[in-house]
């Protein structure tokens, strides 16, 4: 059991978060922040595309309904 624990990351010694540790943490945090900011920007773009697509679908549906109404009116006039 102890051998297994020592092979796991949780069994590893604590990270030396002294002066050097702060710089190392800083570098990795900067990388992570850049990545998160990029993903957030891309998520906003994808949301915008989704919203525009919804608007466009609504527009296409409304136009199709209008067309159907118009055709029904024409048929009514033609039949009468």
């Amino acid at each position: 059991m102890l051998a297994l624990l020592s092979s796991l990351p949780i069994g590893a010694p604590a990270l030396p978060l002294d002066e050097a540790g702060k710089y190392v943490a800083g570098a990795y945090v900067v990388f992570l922040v850049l990545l998160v900011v990029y993903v957030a920007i891309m998520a906003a773009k994808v949301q915008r595309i989704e919203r525009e697509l919804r608007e466009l679908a609504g527009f296409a549906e409304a136009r199709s309904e209008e067309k159907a109404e118009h055709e029904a009116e024409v048929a009514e006039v033609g039949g009468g």
Partner: protein
Amino acid sequence: MYGKGLRTLSIATVATLALALSLTFFYAPLDADQGFIQKIFYLHVPLAIVALLGFVAGGVFAVLHLRGGDSRWDAYSYVSIHMSVIFGVAVLVTGSIWAKASWGHWWVWDEPTLVSFLIVFLMYATYYPFRYAIEDRERQARYASVFAVTAGAFVPLNFIAVRMAESLVHPRTFATANGGLPGEMMLTFLVSLAAMGLLWTTLVKFELTAKSASGQLKRLRRALDAPAPGGASRVAPEVS
């Protein structure tokens, strides 16, 4: 089309990044000279290599665009350069942090490696104003491709010049035949490099997919003759 395989690629990227971080902090031994600070090496150097290769890839895609005139290659070139500029920001920041911890200065102007990377980065930073100063889309793509080819050719030349120059403080890790790294460090470095390469590829694919969706949406809007939404003008190249 661009989104094909994106899920698999994303999973592979996250898994490789997790493995790289685990190896960095729990497997790779502490450097005898720098100690714990050297852990930045596994982030900073792969980022720099991938960023520089991304600039070269941008040049290769630009050549394909100039040869065939296919706007998809222009989009590939643009996104490759865009992603490498973002990686370049990370390289400069992580490098500065490492420099401060190791040498006591955020930046050393006498060091060829640092200054040459800054020159490459600033050169690519001019890509955006250069590109968007041209309104006509075809001319814009053509001129941007010429820029990408020229700058892409400059990157390896610059790298060779830096390797030939005398280094003052920046280490030459891979200057020896075996890379100058013990086995555990080399393995960790290679996994980190693979992780960064995968991350770059995933983000490029992600960005291309978003651009393609945006382009298709505009085509659909034009076909339906629908009104354009407010503030939706995009300057980046579209792919369909």
